[in-house]
């Protein structure tokens, strides 16, 4: 068990039972990704969305995951306490089939970056703002090979992701977005 086979993975645990539906996580995530930082708020730009259905007592924070160029062939349909949820309701993907996890103006995909910044934050901001402890942060050691998506993104995935983006939006928009996001400190 040498260090070279282990790496530290950042993980946010979500306890839906503790969520009180306040959307503070959406507020701070969108504010911290604004340019200049904190200059605006817009939960539609947040990399976390709280799926809410108050009369069914459903509060599920969902983090923006990978972009997908094509929608899934098969769809999820959830039934919870006898109520059916719209297709894809709890999916993490930024996907052509729906508006969630896309910049509202440009349509560019959003993805949780775990608040990577310099200097590194003690805890991601959504976790800091979740006083209900529905979101908790942990660093866990895993085998380097098994880290997978949670451990960070492999370079091949970035290439594939960018190509997919370019296919949808054209290279110039993607380059603009990358430039804008790096100015923004979203590295």
């Amino acid at each position, binding site marked *: 068990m040498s260090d070279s086979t282990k790496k530290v993975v950042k993980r946010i645990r979500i306890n839906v039972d503790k969520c*009180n539906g306040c959307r503070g996580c959406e507020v701070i995530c969108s504010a911290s990704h*604004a340019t200049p*930082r*904190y200059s605006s708020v817009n939960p539609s730009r947040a990399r976390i969305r709280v799926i809410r259905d*108050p009369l*069914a*007592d459903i*509060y599920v924070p969902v983090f923006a995951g990978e972009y997908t160029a094509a929608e899934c062939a098969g769809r999820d349909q959830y039934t919870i306490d006898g109520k059916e949820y719209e297709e894809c309701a709890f999916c993490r993907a930024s996907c052509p089939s729906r508006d969630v996890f896309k910049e509202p103006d440009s349509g560019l995909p959003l993805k949780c970056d775990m608040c990577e910044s310099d200097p590194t934050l003690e805890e991601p901001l959504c976790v800091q703002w979740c*006083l*209900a402890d529905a979101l908790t942060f942990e660093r866990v050691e895993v085998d380097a090979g098994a880290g997978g998506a949670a451990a960070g993104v492999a370079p091949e995935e970035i290439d594939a992701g960018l190509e997919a983006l370019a296919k949808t939006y054209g290279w110039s928009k993607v380059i603009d977005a990358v430039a804008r996001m790096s100015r923004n400190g979203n590295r």
Partner: protein
Amino acid sequence: MRYAETGYNLEVDLTRGNIERVATDPELTSLHLGGLGTNARLFWDRVPPEVSHFDPENLLIFGAGLLVGTPGPGCNRTIVSSISPQTRFFGFSMMGGFFAPEMKRAGYDKIILRGRAPAPVYLWIHDDKIEIRDATHLWGLGTLESAECIRQELKQPHAAVASIGLAGENRVFFASIEQGKSSASRVGLGAVMGDKRLKAIAVLGSKDIHVARPEEFIRLANESLAYIKHREKNPILGVMPIMAGLGSPQEMVVHDEEWHTENFVWGNARVRRKGFWTEEVRDSWTRTMETMRTRLLSCYNCPMKCGAAISVDTRACSYMMKCFSKLTYTMAAFSDLEFGLRIAQLATEHGVDSFSAPQVMAFALELLEAGILTEADFPGMPPDTNSRFYWLLDRIVRREGIGDVLADGTYWAAERIGKGAHEYAHNCIKKTEQLPLKLGMLNQMYFLMYCTGEKASITQIEGNFPQTPFPTREEQEAFTRDWPHVPDERFKRWFEEWELRGEKSIPNYPSAEASYEIVNWQEAMHYIDDATGMCAGLSSFPYKPPFHIHNLPELISAGSGLDLDERSLMHLTKRTRDLVRSLNVARGMRRVDDAPPADHWKTRFPELEQRLLDGYYDYKGWNRDGIPTRATLHALGLDYVAEDFLRRGILRPDEEAPDAEEAAAGATARGEGHAS
């Protein structure tokens, strides 16, 4: 660029179906901030006193506070304003939840409704796309029911919906506007919405809200969150558990109801039940709460969890509630908590105010007992009290039979019933039912708050200064040691020296002069919140809140780009406060209306009370009839109000209100449950 606000209002003429997006004047923001402040200004400009509550010309405004939608915790209030059918004055009622932030993100600071739709409609606002849609199929549905239908038909599960139920549709004078976990309940604004045939407003937005000085603003927001965490670990010692923390009184969390059940009064605000809170009751009510409460809930961007999802049927959440509505039905019906939580579900669907409705029903049963109403007025009413409450609620919201009379609230119902019924409508201020609380000895501060609170609700004016002394001076000193919230050090002395018994106790202490300052400060904090949209639960209401007069100027400035300090914020707040007063003065509010329920205290001091009012009016810059003087109006930049008052003969060039003394004397003769 406009900061914190969007700079646009939505004007909707329901008669013609006309919709306009109107840019607002930034000058008004600097004069009144937003929320209640600018709502009041719009009423002054556009709704003269000749317009009454159910005239199509009456406006119904949903105004977002200035800081709503910013990262400021608790900045989520919608301030609903209209002429109230109950008070006949300018009414305003605040709701938390999720409506105002959504409105702001759709691009509007206010939704201003006028006219009356030819048939039931609802309004759907999705950013720039606005539709007036048919609501015939929703008419008659409950508030939550119709909101759910709307979300489904729009296929927008996250749209915020504010709606009325049967009570609003049938213009019940204490009808509420419900919005999931929050509601604008007081003074019957739901009835105005029903009169306009507007079933609901659904709104969803996807735009940005900007703040002027981001780093500064976020630092203040982060500090407040850190302070909230600190206060969670360090509740205030020596006060009732519901008052020890932040937020609105923590009724959904705290099971100990000894204070409410033994000190507040049951039935039609009559019966004190000492010794009620036995172990048996405690265990049974705790069980009820723990089985029926499924989740604690917050408003938009606030960690406080003042609300709760309550399950009364097979659903995990049948409705949501907060605060003292937990006990109002239970106590009015002399029943138990389970009854209270069950009937509140129906009452929420029907959309009634949970302070007024239970009291109106208890009032009806008292009138029956007293023989003023008879069995013939209640045909088919079941014999037991619990069932009678359900029966009465149903008649009231449909305005059927006696329900039609009761739907006007205790004051106006008594007016219609006659035969001495006014004796039984005994718990009103400005014709509005109050918390069921009856006390022994007059307290000068509370006397002034009850009298002059424009909102006609004590919780909307009381706040940061402790309600009673603590048992010992040491405890009081411990409290003041860490109390930066006060405007001045002398406030600390007043509290430290206050005694439960003895020379420095009520009614003599705090002194009149101290009371003026304390009351004025607490009131100002509420008016600031009502303009910024900050929840009172994080600012004007609890002891030692995160926001107060020493950090709010910076928060508002960093958010909006205005340049405010404590002085200018207080000045601006007084401008709005006196404009609200003036709106009501124009509608006939006078000294006689500034009175607590006659039986609120057992021991009254008519002379002292009149001296107090005189002194407080002087302090406020109002004349002996409670009307802001010309000099006051001038200092506040409200010369246009003074001119109007001169034209109408409300003020005379020599600044005396005509016949002030005569009016007061006439009022005394009239009685009407008023003091003096």
